[in-house]
């Protein structure tokens, strides 16, 4: 079986779109099964006839909403790809500044000519069938989602914290190095790549479905982080994470 797919980028760095080309080992095989019919970074053709739509990026402007809805109508399966599309991502950081000041800082006296609206994840506007987490997405997980969809099963995406993977990899916990880590509340699947390189997890994959937030706060506090530092950590990738946790 082959499927037709489109890759669409909204407000993002397009790193996630590029990851789909970074699976060099499997790319030819993937291209044998997935016909990309709309993928601005890689091909000229543009078709509105596709089964799967991969969405890269957050929604930050009015006209993006309309485009997104059109894509949703056409695609049988919509996959949100990366932290921006899934949880608003890093760009949500701008929401902690006054909109007017934001524009003025970047565009000076021309600020009046620009418009931007609050950063929102794709799921705010349309139904998302599957999510690929992370900033950027993990290439193995991209292959997993593609193969799972082709064979008709639900992709295997973990719903347990990064700590689990981290212990499996026999990493030294970064808390023991005196660093702070979002791993206890962040969805695994990246292979704990940051702790493996002695960096505390930033939470780019968003949180597990039911994160133990109070417990995590307790750990961070016990390790000497101030309230402000904890909040800064949470804001980095999880400013807009589910309505209940909006804007920590």
């Amino acid at each position, binding site marked *: 079986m082959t499927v037709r797919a489109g890759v669409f980028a909204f407000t993002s760095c397009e790193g996630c779109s590029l990851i789909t080309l970074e699976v060099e080992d499997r790319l030819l095989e993937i291209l044998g099964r997935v016909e990309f019919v709309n993928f601005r970074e890689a091909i000229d053709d543009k078709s509105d006839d596709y089964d799967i739509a991969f969405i890269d990026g957050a929604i930050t402007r009015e006209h993006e909403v309309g485009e997104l809805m059109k894509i949703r109508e056409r695609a049988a399966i919509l996959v949100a790809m990366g932290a921006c599309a899934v949880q608003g991502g890093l760009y949500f950081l701008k929401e902690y500044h006054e909109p007017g000041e934001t524009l003025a800082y970047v565009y000076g006296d021309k600020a009046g000519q620009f418009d931007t609206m609050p950063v929102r994840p794709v799921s705010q506007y349309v139904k998302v069938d599957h999510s690929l987490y992370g900033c950027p997405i993990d290439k193995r997980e991209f292959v997993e989602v593609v193969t799972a969809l082709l*064979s008709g*099963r639900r992709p295997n995406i973990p719903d347990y914290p990064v700590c689990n993977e981290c212990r499996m990899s026999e990493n030294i916990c970064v808390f023991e190095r005196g660093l702070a880590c979002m791993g206890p509340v962040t969805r695994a699947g990246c292979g704990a790549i940051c702790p493996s390189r002695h960096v505390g997890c930033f939470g780019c994959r968003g949180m*597990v479905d039911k994160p133990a937030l109070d417990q995590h706060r307790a750990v961070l506090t016990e390790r000497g982080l101030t309230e402000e530092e904890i909040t800064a950590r949470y804001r980095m990738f999880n400013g807009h994470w589910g309505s209940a946790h909006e804007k920590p």
Partner: protein
Amino acid sequence: MGLMAIDKRDLSAFIDGLIPQWEVVAPVPVEFKYAFRKVGSFQDVALDYTNTMLPPKKFLLPQRDELFSCNPEGGPSLTPRFDETPRVLFGVHSCDVHGIWLLDDILAEGCSDPHYLCRRSNTLIIGLDCKGPCHDNAFCKDMGTLKPAGGFDLFLTDLGERYAVQVGTGAGTALAERGGFYMADFEVREEFFAAWQKKQSGFPNRIGYDTAALPNILAESYDDIIWEALEMRCFDCGACTTVCPTCYCFDVLDENDIGTDRSIRYRRWDSCQLQDFAAVAGGANFRGKRSDRLRHRLLRKGKYFKEKFGRFACVGCGRCGRSCLLHIDVRDVFNQLKG
């Protein structure tokens, strides 16, 4: 079986002599910790190591264990996968030897698990006595694992200039015949006995009562408020079960090859502490409460297996307590239950 000995200077030749024929796995330093890894030479081995991050079970029940592959063409045809790599686990401390010994029982019991047993029958275990408590929270003495009782082929105890070598199996005898080993004479026996006495007195008890009472204490504490109190200290991350030498629960998954439509069914480590471990399709979660999950783990460690196999499914290594970010420590819980 018998007691033998090997001079320290001969150990290196013995281990290096195994490497061409076996994959030799031993503790190696990883920054300020240790891990069991495949080694290329005796020089890489950390003889004076403290408890590794993961127990050696990862070589017998790997994190990803392929059960069979399926080729859809002409059939489909299913091919079971068995790992027959000849392997030596060297330098295993007595707590971990106990852990393996327990897995041996569990995975052979009832419908036996040939994927484990195949690996196990191709694995030789050479234990090594630790000299003192490796960590503040190790409570091996209380759990009765100071001394190996089964599950090893050879077990070495440092006597200064040489090692006393307990021979546990016929395969161990065959290993000892490779040279360097000799029958223990009276002097070795005396020293070995003295070393054991010294080890026993050098390890403190860390549980405030005789653990023989543990199953009953746990039974009586089934509805104790202590479980609720632990709720607020757990993340459901499963670190504790991942690092535990006696945990073996797994999940079974299919993986497809995008190019060929072939698939592989494999299992991977799972954890009874994860939220969805007991959730079913209808939406029910039979252990949806964190406190229930914690109690389940503790009861398995201190009661269920003791009743079934006569041994605790906790060897007192202390790994779980050290891995838990909010310090849920099996030993502390055992102590509090009596408190």
